[in-house]
């Protein structure tokens, strides 16, 4: 069997597994921005005082770089490019452990893009402008992303719907201006949009394993909500969100892993013991070489998955799961390797190594763990 399905409609396209110049430029631009605004100092600040949403940087990122607008169609004020571009952004963000609501907003934007024009007109330009922060409220107590639960219900009233229920593992619940909520109607699950300021919305922020991601739960008590995606299409949209999340997280993790390896290699030539840099010992070299290989495998799978999603190829879902599980393994290995090579100081609170390690383990579990994704691969490939 071949997982790569040949296309016959692109007549002039030669074999090319690489990015375009524009995509490389985007990478450079984003890298510069996040290094400047979300670099080591920002991580130090998170270590000392915890995560705080940087609203200035958020609006700058939208208006100067058009980052939030990448996923927004041109007719609604964005640049309407695809998953290759957003995965480049996420990879660069992952490198510095960018802490902010980009991923949350991206996933919610994916839901909104399935809505009718009226809804899209109302919300998407605000996303592109950086005026809105969105998130997805999906999972219920004791459930997972791929099987989120049915306890949250939406009742149709005179003036639209009202939603009641508890959603957990919500990212950026406090920063969000609107939440995309999956709730049950008599006709099945549907997506609704809820104003974060609406009466009956109760947000609780928790201290997560990943100190760089705002996480918590949201209780909804008869909250006014607008239908965004009706039951007939809601399942397909959920599937799209899950695949988008898998690839997005994979990209972040590849970026994070790459940085961990760079940090480890850099330290290994600075740190001298026994009269020589510790990187000159084969044990250290071999750990780094193995990490390099794992990261490269995850990287190519992630780039392919982004391509597959952007082209809606038949193997897109398999590719997304392959990327997520490979990136999770690679990041965990690289982040653990980084702590080990740093020795004692790698284990201190002050050093950023543990922030990367926490991000690696948390992201591995996010939007379903590797066991789930490998199981999904096995199912989709009829193993």
């Amino acid at each position, binding site marked *: 069997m071949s997982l790569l399905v040949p296309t016959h409609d692109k007549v002039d396209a030669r074999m090319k597994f690489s990015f375009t110049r524009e995509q490389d430029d985007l990478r450079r631009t984003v890298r510069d921005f996040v290094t400047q605004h979300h670099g080591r100092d920002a991580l130090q600040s998170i270590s000392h005082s915890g995560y705080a949403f940087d609203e200035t940087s958020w609006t700058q990122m939208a208006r100067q770089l058009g980052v939030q607008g990448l996923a927004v169609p041109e007719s609604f004020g964005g640049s309407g490019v695809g998953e290759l571009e957003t995965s480049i952004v996420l990879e660069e963000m992952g490198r510095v452990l960018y802490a902010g609501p980009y991923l949350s907003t991206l996933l919610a934007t994916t839901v909104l893009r399935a809505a009718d024009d009226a809804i899209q007109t109302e919300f998407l330009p605000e996303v592109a402008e950086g005026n809105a922060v969105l998130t997805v409220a999906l999972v219920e107590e004791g459930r997972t992303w791929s099987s989120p639960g049915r306890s949250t219900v939406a009742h149709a009233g005179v003036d639209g719907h009202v939603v009641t229920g508890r959603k957990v593992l919500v990212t950026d619940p406090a920063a969000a201006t609107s939440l995309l909520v999956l709730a049950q109607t008599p006709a099945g699950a549907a997506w609704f949009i809820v104003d974060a300021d609406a009466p009956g919305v109760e947000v609780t922020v928790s201290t997560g394993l990943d100190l760089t991601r705002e996480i918590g739960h949201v209780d909804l008590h008869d909250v006014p909500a607008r239908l965004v995606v009706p039951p007939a299409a809601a399942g397909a949209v959920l599937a799209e969100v899950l695949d988008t999340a898998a690839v997005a997280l994979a990209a972040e993790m590849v970026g994070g892993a790459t940085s961990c390896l760079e940090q480890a290699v850099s330290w290994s030539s600075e740190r001298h013991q026994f009269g020589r840099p510790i990187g*000159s010992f084969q044990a250290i070299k071999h750990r780094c*070489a193995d990490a390099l290989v794992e990261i490269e495998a*995850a990287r190519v799978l992630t780039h392919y998955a982004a391509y597959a999603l952007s082209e809606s190829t038949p193997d897109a879902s398999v590719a997304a799961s392959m990327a997520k599980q490979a990136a999770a393994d690679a990041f965990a290995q690289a982040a653990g390797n980084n702590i080990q090579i740093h020795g004692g100081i790698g284990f201190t609170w002050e050093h950023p190594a543990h922030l990367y390690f926490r991000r690696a383990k948390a992201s591995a579990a996010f939007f379903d763990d590797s066991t789930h994704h490998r199981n999904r691969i096995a199912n989709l490939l009829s193993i």
Partner: protein
Amino acid sequence: MHPHFDADVQQFQLELTDFLRPLLPQGWQGSGRLEPDAYEAFAEDLRAKLVEGGYIGLSWPTEYGGGGRSPEYQVAVAEQLTRMKLPPAVPNDVFGLQMFGSTLLAFGTEEQKKRFLPRIISGEDRWCQGYSEPQSGSDLASAATSAMLENGQWRINGQKIWTSVAHKADWIFVLVRTDSSAAKHKGLTLLACPLDQPGIEIRPIRQISGESDFNEVFFTDAMTPEENTIGEVNGGWAVATALLEFERGGAAATLAARFDEELDRLVELAQVRGKAGNDSIRQRLAWCRGRVLAMRLMGYKSLTQLLDGRPIGPEAAMNKLYWSEYHRVATELAMEILGEQALIPEGRLPSIPDGPDAPGAPQDSAGWVTTFLNARSSTIFAGTSEVQRNLLAERILGMPREPKVAAPQPR
């Protein structure tokens, strides 16, 4: 981003299929169904047919008998052969067609190219590689087999080991010491030497599978004319190491097609053995699928760089480490799936001594067990995994070299 062959190349694959269809008997299930002897004969017949059709040496310049096409075609043909469950090559082609041929194109004189290359394509000359010695394995630069120039002839004395398919070859490209007083890397020369002469003796080595795919080659006053010097005298190290790198480029992609086919058979084995519902087995098979796709993509990435005329990136240097370590894991999984059936291996032995068996191979336990045993050699030959990791760390990651121990004098 377009990880597919272009329309012309895909068309070429279809033409190849039409060209080869007459060779395939009714109910063709793959060359893997043939017993090793029949497989060998079939592979030779196929090769002759491919030469006829101009499918060998596709990316070599036409003036030497090649097809003058872009490297994309070479990879595409290899993938298509696997898809049709045909032998990817005859064993000596790795050494002649891939390694030595590419080296000659880069380092050879015009006269050498005209003399050797067409005969490599036609298959008239079969090649093997004389590098390792009993005392020079990982430390290849310490090679001691000597060559002295006398009246326009090199006189070679010494011993090479781990020479694959020497017993089927006509020629050997051999790394010899031509200056014992120079630093070890600076006293080596690469020579092409005919094997059929009284001064050369070939002895098979029996390996852990019980088979003999490797040999020792003894040189006692073996001779080869000066015109068979490849590259500069005493400049052999650069030539020899470049040759090892020519295995890279698109090679990862073509190997991936074979590993993919092997994985299809492994999944089928799990189903036949009633273990396809086992969670642990499913997890590992799914992991393998991702691993092989990544292998193919890394190959496409290198191929892209080749087509763009850019220098090949780090993923090419990982290729050997990646596939050999993967194969160790995949064959371990095969053993686990076989369970008690591995205790008394039965049936057909593999037709290919390293890497995946021929496409369409049956589910005989002897095939899987032998492939598993041979997989232990893959992490050793052509640069051990340890050496590969050192190279990746030093050349790609820029990590500091180990301090040198005072080197003993070369013998």
